[in-house]
């Protein structure tokens, strides 16, 4: 009967088993031993990869700029510790494909020595534009997983004169508790970051939304926000995917973001609590984003924990520290178990987007024994975007990708609710990811063939034109010759 009484502002969603207690009850571990080598990808954000400005062999300090951002949407990359640059080359990316991308390899010297930065005094005296500049220069991106450059978002918020800043403390993914711990332990810093963001966007009201399964985080944040009337802390129901920005915006403000719009266009901007913490560090202490809190959990982890690691730390180092049993590990997942991607191996670095690394055992995984769809429509009920996953999957299976696009393939947010609930174990999200990739590839192929056709036609036209020109020249030549001959004949006749 829940359908009758549920809040109209929440649509769909599931209540997955949380499995957060193993990590949420203990403090963030801060004494992670500094790895010998750090692998720092040049692309840890949405947009263009950063451009390296160091040379191999150069000695760098912690927080020193290694690669600067290029283009409108991009972010710089900094040294996560002090040491020597060993290499700038292609290494496997923390991505399901593990295809190589450009990375800077840093050999740490063990001193972990920070680059000294000048004190800026009271940041609230700085002009708002200066806040965005500093946030941009610190390499801060959305730490909830979207990794959109934060400075760009601050600028958009300021330009669109938004009225509400929402701080996403939902952390709705099972297993993950890094935001929860951060809110419990570093609430003052987060609230300070929130106020700095407000200043940077010239906005006067912020709402921190925390799922009601984190009462301690809520209490800590409420206490920290007490002196500041501009920052309100609220509890929201625990229901995945509450942390989906658009779901949260609708729940908090009652507004729905139209398809194809940025939320700032309707007067709202949303940032993650981790991002707010990073903003605090960047502005107050002049420290760029070089580390983050990562949840390491799952049945195969003997010492599950939240641990603060320098960016670029290999997952293998992290797993050693947390005693992950390789025999028990059936799947390695980066991110949460709902939206995260499986990784092929562990010689991959942690990056700005890494909120968690899970080592899951076979018994934790969803059954893969696929059965026929019984049209139970659970997937329709749980879809927060209002799609019909079963029909989309049918279309994709029949290779009717256009039909799938027509009924909303591009509106799918890959939240995984449909795959989670499906009693027939149909990997629906896998279908949708495949189809989206295929649609993009087809469009590209079509674009390419059109381009080729246009070039062919242009060439043909050019050849025709040249032939025509030659023909005309030839005719002109013949005509001229005739004329010459005629004149010659006339001349001879008169002579």
């Amino acid at each position, binding site marked *: 009967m829940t359908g009758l009484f549920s809040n109209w502002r929440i649509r769909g969603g599931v209540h997955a088993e949380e499995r957060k207690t193993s990590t949420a009850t203990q403090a963030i571990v801060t004494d992670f031993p500094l790895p010998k080598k750090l692998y720092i990808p040049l692309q840890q954000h949405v947009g263009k990869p950063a451009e390296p400005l160091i040379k191999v062999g150069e000695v760098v300090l912690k927080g020193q700029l290694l690669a600067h951002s290029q283009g409108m949407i991009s972010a710089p990359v900094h040294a996560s510790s002090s040491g020597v640059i060993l290499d700038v080359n292609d290494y496997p990316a923390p991505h*399901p494909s593990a295809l190589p991308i450009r990375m800077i390899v840093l050999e740490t010297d063990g001193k972990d020595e920070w680059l000294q930065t000048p004190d800026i005094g009271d940041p609230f005296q700085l002009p708002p534009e200066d806040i965005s500049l500093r946030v941009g220069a610190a390499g801060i991106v959305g730490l909830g997983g979207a990794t959109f450059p934060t400075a760009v978002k601050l600028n958009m918020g300021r330009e669109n004169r938004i009225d509400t800043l929402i701080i996403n403390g939902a952390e709705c993914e099972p297993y993950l508790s890094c935001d929860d711990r951060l809110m419990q332990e570093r609430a003052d810093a987060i609230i300070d970051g929130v106020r700095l963001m407000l200043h940077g966007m010239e906005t006067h009201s912020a709402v921190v939304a925390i799922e009601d399964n984190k009462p301690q985080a809520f209490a800590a944040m409420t206490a920290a926000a007490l002196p500041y009337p501009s920052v309100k802390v609220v509890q929201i129901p625990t229901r995945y995917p509450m942390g989906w920005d658009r779901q949260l915006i609708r729940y908090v403000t009652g507004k*729905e*973001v*139209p398809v194809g719009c940025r939320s700032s266009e309707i007067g709202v901007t949303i940032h993650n609590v981790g991002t707010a913490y990073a903003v605090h560090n960047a502005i107050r202490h002049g420290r760029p984003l070089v580390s983050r809190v990562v949840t390491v959990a799952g049945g195969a982890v003997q010492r599950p924990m939240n641990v603060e690691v320098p960016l670029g730390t290999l997952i293998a180092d992290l797993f050693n520290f947390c005693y992950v049993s390789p025999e028990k590990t059936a799947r390695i997942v980066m991110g949460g178990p709902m939206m995260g991607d499986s990784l092929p191996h562990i010689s991959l670095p942690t990056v700005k987007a890494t909120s968690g690394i899970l080592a899951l055992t076979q018994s934790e995984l969803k059954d893969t024994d696929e*059965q026929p769809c019984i049209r139970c429509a659970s997937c329709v009920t749980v879809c927060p975007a209002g799609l*019909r996953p079963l029909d989309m999957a049918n279309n994709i299976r029949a290779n009717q990708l256009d039909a799938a696009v027509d009924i*909303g393939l591009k509106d799918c947010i890959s939240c*995984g609710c449909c795959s989670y609930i499906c009693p027939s174990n149909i990997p629906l999200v896998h279908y949708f990811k495949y189809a989206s990739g295929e649609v993009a590839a087809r469009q590209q192929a079509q674009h390419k063939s059109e381009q080729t056709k246009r070039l062919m036609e242009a060439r043909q036209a050019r050849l025709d034109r040249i032939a025509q020109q030659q023909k005309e020249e030839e005719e002109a030549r013949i005509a001229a010759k005739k004329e010459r001959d005629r004149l010659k004949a006339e001349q001879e006749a008169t002579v």
Partner: protein
Amino acid sequence: MMTHNKPSSGAHVGANRSVRQIMWQVMLALSPATVFGLWCFGWPAVFLFSVTLTSAVLFEAFCIRLKGKAVKPVLLDGSALLTGWLLAMTLPPWAPWWLGVVGAGLAIVLGKQVYGGLGQNLFNPAMLARVALLISFPIEMTTWANVSPLFFADSPSFADSLGITFSGLQNLDAYTGATTLGYIKTEFSQHRLLPDILKDYSAVLNFIGWTRGSLGETSTLLLGLGGLWLIRQNIIQWQIPVSLLMTVALLSGVFHLLDSDHYVSPFLHLNSGAMMCVAFFIATDYVTSPNTATGQLVFGAGCGLLIFVIRTWGAYPEGAGFAVLLMNAATPLIDHYIRPRIYGRDRKGKPLEIPKP
């Protein structure tokens, strides 16, 4: 080093409810009413029930074998057993054994497997079989045994029961009669009026299920409770049962108020096991009902309307099967027109407009 080469998308974890569990939970919800029915109608009912379920499973196995697939995993999902079970519940309890076999064959082969198996069929297999049987064998399908519970002195013995099920019923009239709805229909043709006809009707006995009727469809109480449990377990949603029952209640209420001599009261309509069985177990079949909550409301209301029309003015007093089949046929249409609104878009699929500040 750990390596896992098969990439997989989320969700990596899942709700632990499989197709098999769903089927078994539905059967569990059916069992109180079934056990009560089997007890009420004695050994012949037990024989018919066993024959129908066994043949449903055998037909399924046969079809899967023809397809060249492994039989065991398909049988274990319980869907064939459930189809057979639902069919058996709707058969007259003392019907001959071959009726169960033919019915199971129709349900599994024609109702389900020819469409491609589980999840592909347009019509509810059990209802398809029941309606086909009703049209083909009208006498056998409308011969209703009196309540004659197991271990009662007047009830047929084990040996007699074997005779009833496997070599045909002798001396029919001594053991049989009409169902309430059938009786009303017959008496109307004798120009009698409702208050007169229903002199012997006992609401309480009907509520418990101590009355003539289909094998497992007599008890309003037990079927209703089973259905409510399914809703509580989140196996079925409330939309179809509620809109179906409300529609029947509303329509029969209006007509009963207008002319209580010719139109049965809503209480009598709803106080029937068959109505509960259809509302909670038949119309809610996932495969043949709409996908969206609104669509399900429409579907349920349509079923209710048709049930009332067929019961009241049709030739078959037990018209629920026809009503469900007709609405099954309308399901693709309902799903085509009633779709959920996509986030950030209007009902037509256009992006929402940006609100003016």
